[in-house]
């Protein structure tokens, strides 16, 4: 791990102000640029270290047929959202892979615009759970718990939206 002494750099925080004589504009720019680059590279490295293994795990899950299996298991849930059973496929694809993969598999389905919106809500709240879970883990949270939260809260949000749309239409 890199040394963390950039903590002590004055003016680096929102509230910080330089002690003594303020440095020239050019010098300050150079200093901020250097600190920014360092913070950027450090953050990049930390994210890469958790995202790449998570991405590898995702590919393996897909290859093992876990997506197809989960999609079959989730079919009955889809009626609660006013969606056809096949809508479970883009949902699970989104959970394991990402939004773009989910949109790709949504295009294969014949959905009404209301169904597209309901499914979009569930996918927008829960997607890319392994890679984004790894980032939350890095921030000190439990990645699995947050994955479960996003699945449950996403499905609940979609179900409530579907109910409200039924009342309003």
């Amino acid at each position, binding site marked *: 791990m890199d040394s*963390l002494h*950039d*903590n002590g750099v004055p*003016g*680096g*925080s*929102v509230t*910080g102000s330089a002690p003594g004589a303020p440095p020239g504009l050019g010098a300050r*720019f150079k200093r*901020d*640029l250097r*600190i*920014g*680059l360092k*913070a*950027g*590279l*450090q*953050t*990049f490295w*930390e*994210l*890469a270290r958790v*995202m*790449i293994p998570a*991405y*590898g795990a995702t*590919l*393996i899950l897909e*290859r093992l047929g876990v997506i197809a299996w989960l999609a079959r298991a989730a079919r009955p849930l889809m009626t609660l959202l006013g969606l056809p059973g096949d809508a479970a496929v883009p949902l699970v694809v989104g959970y394991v892979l990402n*939004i*773009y993969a989910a*949109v790709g598999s*949504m*295009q294969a389905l014949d959905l009404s*615009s209301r169904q*597209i*919106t309901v499914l*979009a*809500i569930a*996918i*927008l*709240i829960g997607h890319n759970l392994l*890679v*984004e879970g790894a*980032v*939350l883990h*890095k*921030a*000190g*949270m439990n990645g699995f718990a*947050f994955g479960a*939260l*996003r699945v449950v*809260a996403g499905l609940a*949000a979609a179900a*409530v*939206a579907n109910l409200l*749309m039924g009342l309003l239409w």
Partner: protein
Amino acid sequence: MVDLLHTFVTGSFDLLLRVFLIVVPIMVALELFEGTRAFRVVVRAWARVVRHVGLDERSAAPTLIGFLFGLAYGGGVIVRDVRRHDLGRRQVFIMSVFLSMVHAIAEDSLVFIALGASIFWIVVYRIAWAAVVTLALTAVAGLLVRRLRGRG
């Protein structure tokens, strides 16, 4: 097996490149503008909004980055600011819940708007939902923490 490895290598490169091209410029821009008046005005305005879900001013900048650009990038700034400002577990928890529900507001939403989803439901409704879930979970978590401490 070989094609899986190939996918992994090219996919990883793609992912790393994307993260690099977004994270490094964000961090440099943050460092350059953090001290400016304009930045403080924006962050303060945003802080007044997110105050309602229990976030303080130090958490406003990472939350704004995550809300605009995505969880991974906001997460990166959270990691940085946890180290710098010692945000505390409660603030990190609130940010994580809120950003879990809504992030990358433009990019992610546009993908579905292109498919024909309603802007109102996937933007306005989702933000409202995020606020409700954040407040509810923070209340529950607070209760649990108090109970655990009370017993200890």
